[in-house]
């Protein structure tokens, strides 16, 4: 009786494990996290630093290229709401080792009309910049 009970327990446990795994949140490596509301994709979200909230604004696309050996980035931002909105943003530039390249940029205000798309361009402070982040805030910094 004891042997058969043990077998039954083992069989039940083996059956439960896959169910439990299916219910648990899957680690990031197994499944990519969904993009936050302010970014069109997780890849874009990885380049954004959102201080608090950017309300209904979303970064739709990001492009970068090197011109005259300097990194140039263009971001397309969209106001998904029908109401006017204001964004404060700045670019942060990083060198190949992840260290900040150049000084902090000034915060720049950007006004959006309802449902408006805008392109924002940033130029790196020099050839040493190899990566970037866009810092964004809906409140005045």
């Amino acid at each position, binding site marked *: 009786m004891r042997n058969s009970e043990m077998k039954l327990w083992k069989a039940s446990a083996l059956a439960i494990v896959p169910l439990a795994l299916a219910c648990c949140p899957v680690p990031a490596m197994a499944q990519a996290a969904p993009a936050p509301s302010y970014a069109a994709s997780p890849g874009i979200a990885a380049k954004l630093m959102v201080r608090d909230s950017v309300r209904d604004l979303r970064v739709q696309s990001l492009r970068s290229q090197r*011109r*005259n050996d*300097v990194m*140039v980035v263009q971001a397309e931002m969209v106001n998904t709401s029908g109401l006017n909105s204001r964004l*404060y943003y*700045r670019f942060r530039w990083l060198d190949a080792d992840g260290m900040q390249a*150049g*000084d*902090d*940029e*000034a*915060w*720049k*205000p950007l006004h959006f009309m309802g449902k408006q798309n805008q392109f924002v*361009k*940033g*130029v*790196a*402070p*020099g*050839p040493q910049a190899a990566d970037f982040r866009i810092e964004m805030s809906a409140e*005045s*910094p």
Partner: protein
Amino acid sequence: MSGAACQAGRLAGRNSNSNSKGEFMSSGLSLRAACGAAVFSVLLLPGCQVMQPKVDAPTGVSYGDAKAVETVTNEFGSTDLQMIAERMTGSLLESAVLSGRPTLTLAPVRNKTSEYIDTKSIMDSIQTRLIKSNKVRFTRSMDEMQTGVEELQRQNQSGLYRSAGKAKMGNMVGAQYTLEGEIGSIVKQAGSVKDVYYKMTLKLYDVSAGTIEWQEEKEIRKTTRR
């Protein structure tokens, strides 16, 4: 830091007390340790006072972010200066005219607005960014020339300097390009609404050919409603 100093001071004080009771006085080593601890505690105990790295007065003065958006009034402000400098520098850096690390110099920027604007400060910000990019070299501007000439004359004509190592006359590098520009504004007011529009234009002239090799402008609109 001061907390660690206090802790060390207390430990040192405890050791010196136990030495005074004669518990470890038999060894010369412990005597030296006791002296060391006493000196250590005397040096570190003043650090136990709670000190703040500021001198304050109840006047409401506080430091802020120099890069923050400033909208105190709609006159020309720090954010305008910074946005202009960033736009001009970015546009110049991505332009092919800067390939080959050319030599530039600054010419005065005309202020055609109705208010006082320190245009030299705008150009200094642009120059700082361009020099830090390492894509250009700058020569002395007309404003800065007198100081350079005086130093050269001091080294070459005063008879005070030995010839080895002194700066020679006639070795200055002439600029290939000059950065020239102007800033203008349009101000309109109707009732409680005041609208100010600024436009700064910057041009890069080839000195020998007299041609414009690059040009950029930055527009800023500021509206105040009372």
